């Protein structure tokens, strides 16, 4: 059994949750992984200070797609304030697989685009060199 390409990762990759579009939304953003050119967009609907609904769209590798899919399940229902401050550690723990430095951006792209949508601020969660 592969460390990285575990069953649940491949399962999320092949059948990502909450992928699609939300034409009516409160926040959106779009981000690119400069490493590979992968793109990910998000739309978010807010109600009562919480994320009421969220959809990702785009394409990428198994890691980035599974990360987005798994994150989406956690994010829907979460308080906006909490979602806006999630860090790299949260995402990597949620993924539960050993991600190398080079693939870190694959794993973090979905969190980056969500942060961008919620805060307007587009830096990488827990960038190297800060």
């Amino acid at each position, binding site marked *: 059994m592969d460390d990285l*390409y575990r069953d649940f990762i491949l399962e999320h990759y092949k059948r990502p949750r909450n992928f699609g579009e939300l034409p009516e939304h409160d926040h959106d953003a779009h981000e690119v992984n400069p490493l590979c050119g*992968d793109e990910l967009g998000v739309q978010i609907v807010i109600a009562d200070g919480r994320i009421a609904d969220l959809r990702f769209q785009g394409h990428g590798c198994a890691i980035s797609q599974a990360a987005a899919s798994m994150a989406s399940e956690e994010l829907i229902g979460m308080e906006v304030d909490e979602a806006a401050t999630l860090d790299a550690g949260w995402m990597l723990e949620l993924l539960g697989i050993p991600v190398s430095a080079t693939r870190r951006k694959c794993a973090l792209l979905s969190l980056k685009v969500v942060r961008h949508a919620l805060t307007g601020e587009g830096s990488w969660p827990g960038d190297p060199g800060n």
Partner: protein
Amino acid sequence: MKHVVCRTSEEPCQECLVGFGAEKIREDFPILWTKVHGKPLVYLDNAATTQKPQAVLDTLMRYYTEENSNVHRGVHFLSQVATQSYESGRTRVRQFLNASHDREIIFTRGATEGINLVAQSYGRKHLRAGDEVIVSAMEHHSNIVPWQQAAAATGAQLRYLEVADDGTLSLEQLDAELARGDVALVALTHVSNVLGTINPVAEIVHRAHDAGALALIDGAQAVPQLEVDLTAIDADFYAWTGHKALGPTGVGVLHARAELLEQMPPFLSGGDMIATVEAQSSSWNELPWKFEAGTSMIAQVVGLGAAIDYLDALGMANIRAHEHALTAYTLERLSATDGVSLFGPPSAEHRGGVVSFALEGIHPHDVAELLSRSNVCIRASHHCAQPLMRRLGVVATARASFGPYNVAADVDALIEAIERAQEVFEG
């Protein structure tokens, strides 16, 4: 199996007529002796950078332990020896590429700096609003972005030659563009780092010149694998990079016509490129030093000389024949593998040692990651060619690329690793 490509030293390469036997060559590259997880390294990322033969490493060590000194302005014996070694590197480059004058050879950090030098020094001075600069949809970013910048600064327009489905550029489209009479410069790659396409650069330069345009050729992928004859190609500017041609990192070459260099303002300024410095103005040193500001990458130039000696001893025609055979074998094996699609020219004939491919349902990143588990190093990326990716309708490709030390067993390992990756994703 039709092709027997330097599989072992006992079974020498027939297909590629080489006689050098890549297995023997491998002995010259210490990194290829490494075992990772008990298995040999299968290095198929040569279009990104090549490995270095022991001779290059020895030369670097010799330079640092016997000659190291700053060059040109030193009178003491170490500086004399170092200057001699550094300038011999220039002469070696000239001979290797059949260029005419040492003073037309400028050392840069790499192809990128070479092209930027032209785009900034030549481009910003000589391009005018209304001028066209022609690039192609298969260019590396280093031969696109500098022209976007020069165009933005001068009002020139950037136009793209299309890439046909078979991975070639259309000379008819080139003629049509040139016929408009407003093309100032044609900037094209000699060999595509994604498709492997070998462009007919001598013909292209000829047509550009006939239309009164200058031509810059990006030789980053060509110099490592073809017999490049700069006199025959006759480009106004030819840029390449040492680290892809068995040389050290941090050194590249721009070859340029002296008349143009004389007219161009300096690019970087500072030490070594001046004749006199007054308080408010300066005058420039002769060519080539006018374009080599500051302390050069001295050791790296000397090391590049050793890389050229090594390539020359193998013979570029032999290297080409060998990589051509490996490429043909790879195309054959990949075509026969389920779920693989290929990019670029269908035959190995007009193609360098680069094969881009896709696996159905598996993102190239995941392909590269899974292949790496089998010690097979390939690249998965947009390969700094996003416009080409858009043309191909993908965000990235997986790419295997060859050096003179690759053997058919490396290709076999690639195919096996691909099959294993497919199992992981199907399982």
